[in-house]
């Protein structure tokens, strides 16, 4: 079992650009949550996808959007990047029957210059 995988591992962008991050959930998991982890901070919930729909959202602007595909993989898109978007972006997957059991991927480190 490959666990949760994310790509790319690192990314450098400039202000105003757009970025897409990808996540493949653990086998058997159908729910994907995205978190932003700033340096020295705990993860902050961005949104969650289930059955290809955004089910709930944290306190993040509309510049942050996502998608879930029929195979449960997911993408996180961030438009009009700001310097403050520099962070580690974490994907967590869980089975719908046990939502609290979340497994995190290694994250994508985004640096906005």
């Amino acid at each position: 079992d490959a666990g949760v995988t994310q790509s790319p591992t690192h990314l450098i962008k400039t202000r105003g650009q757009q970025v897409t991050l990808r996540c493949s959930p653990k086998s058997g998991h159908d729910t994907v949550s995205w978190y932003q982890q700033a340096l020295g901070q705990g993860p902050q919930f961005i949104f969650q996808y289930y059955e290809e729909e955004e089910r709930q959202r944290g306190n993040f602007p509309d510049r942050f959007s996502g998608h879930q595909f029929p195979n449960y993989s997911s993408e996180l898109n961030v438009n009009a990047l700001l310097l403050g978007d520099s962070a580690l972006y974490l994907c967590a997957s869980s089975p719908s029957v046990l939502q609290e059991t979340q497994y995190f991927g290694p994250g994508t480190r985004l640096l906005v210059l």
Partner: protein
Amino acid sequence: QQQVKQSPQSLIVQKGGISIINCAYENTAFDYFPWYQQFPGKGPALLIAIRPDVSEKKEGRFTISFNKSAKQFSLHIMDSQPGDSATYFCASLTDSWGKFQFGAGTQVVVTP
């Protein structure tokens, strides 16, 4: 904004000692409180979790103590080892769909 307050921010403990990390939560909507361990360059990994129908849960050298009336819970790492050096996060489940609020983290350094 963090609604789970975690302390201390960092701690140094000698090998064989006890590490204690404390968390206080505000939201009591759902009773599930996990601790995650994160190594540099890695994602958080679930370490141990508790539901407040019990006041304590132990798994190997790791113990969670829970005080529902005080809205506090803590992680005890017994016989700390250098391999335990990592950042530890507490979390609180805020709804039935798996949305968590995390503490700010505690960096633990275990010296040989």
